């Protein structure tokens, strides 16, 4: 059977992609942040997987407001890179796992999660910056990817409860797949940041650290945190953190915290990163 072997959460700041693409990761500004991912780059090499399910949000790069799916799943063989206004990032095309993606989408719909099915999708920095952070600059990404876009841009966003429950359903669906695959799930976005209005630049590191603690140890309580609290305490764009609950739900009741990293700032954002593994009973 297929199995969820790890969860990875990380911010997905677009400027981080620029830093990678323009070879500036060792600049004074960027080095401390990239250094924080060195452990993780080695860890994913030492603990390989076949497929990465990447929970992320599109930033008006593929989805406009003509169609705005709350939860969607890519079931294609490959995903091209979006032009976000300055040409596509110069990175490899993202290869999909159509067979597992199809199985997951079908299983989730049957379990009452009304996924939008994507046979075509271009992916933006929300998905590709985490790939760059974990895998660097390879000629080809080392895993197949199943994109899982979530609407966190337009309010109402899905509730925290729904996100955690979706993660749990993903875990069941992966385990019901008739194939021997190691699967990781990534929750991306956050942490605290606000990129609009007079309050722009908001950062709340103590809140971010508490969110990480609760995500690891007490997701059953964390799921009820209202969106309003995310907005007030972690900024209007901090609500992206609900995507980390999907990752957490897929890891089971107890987890091992393999690694944690925080860094302020990257561009306008508080960067946070976790590696978690399911704790076997």
């Amino acid at each position, binding site marked *: 059977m297929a199995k969820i072997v790890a969860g990875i959460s990380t911010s997905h700041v*677009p400027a981080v992609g620029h830093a990678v693409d323009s070879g500036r990761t060792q600049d004074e500004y960027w080095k401390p942040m990239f250094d924080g991912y060195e452990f993780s780059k080695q860890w994913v090499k030492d603990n390989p997987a076949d497929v990465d399910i990447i929970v992320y949000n599109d930033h008006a790069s593929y989805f406009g407001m003509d169609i705005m799916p709350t939860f969607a799943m890519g079931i294609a063989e490959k995903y091209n890179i979006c032009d976000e*206004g300055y040409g596509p990032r110069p990175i490899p095309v993202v290869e999909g796992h159509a067979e597992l993606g199809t199985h997951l989408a079908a299983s989730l719909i049957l379990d009452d999660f009304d996924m939008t099915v994507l046979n075509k999708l271009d992916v933006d920095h929300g998905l590709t910056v985490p790939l760059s952070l974990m895998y660097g600059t390879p000629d080809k990404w080392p895993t197949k990817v199943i994109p899982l876009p979530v609407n966190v841009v337009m309010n109402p966003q899905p509730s925290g409860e729904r996100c955690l429950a979706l993660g749990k359903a993903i875990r069941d669906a992966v385990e019901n797949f008739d194939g021997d695959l190691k699967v990781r799930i990534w929750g991306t976005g956050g942490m605290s940041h606000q990129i609009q209005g007079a*309050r722009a630049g908001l950062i709340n590191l103590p809140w971010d650290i508490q969110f990480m603690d609760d995500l690891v140890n007490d997701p059953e309580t964390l799921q009820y945190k209202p969106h309003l609290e995310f907005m007030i305490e972690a900024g209007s764009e901090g609500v992206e953190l609900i995507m980390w609950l999907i990752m957490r739900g897929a890891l089971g009741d107890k987890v091992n915290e393999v690694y944690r990293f925080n860094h302020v700032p990257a561009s306008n954002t508080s960067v946070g990163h976790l590696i978690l593994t399911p704790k076997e009973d």
Partner: protein
Amino acid sequence: MKPNFEQYKDIPGTTIYTIELARKGFQLNEFCMSLRTQENRERFHADEHAYLDEWDMTEEQKQAVLDRDFQRMIDLGGNVYFLSKIFAAEGMSYVQAVSTMTDQTLEEYQAMMLAGGRSPDGWRSKKERGEA
């Protein structure tokens, strides 16, 4: 569950992009989406008025784009991820564009970020700030 969009209006200096606001800004945001191709970016930059007239936007929305007044665009239903297509096409970073919506200069904003960002203290409620 009945939506409660009012609850977001007490957050100072913040516009929550609701489904209601998204209706108001639909054409503005559609225009932004069109800038995802080099061909359209070139056409827009060659004659901004003519390009904007191809969209069913209000005159206020068009003027805000011509003025590069990002706060005004957000007030009129724009969302920053859409608006990023305008500033990215001009080589402007999020930090540069975002700082224009604050009362700080770019240099002051960058210094604030390097020093740990804007504390939420004093920025949680308009009522607390005497703004409402």
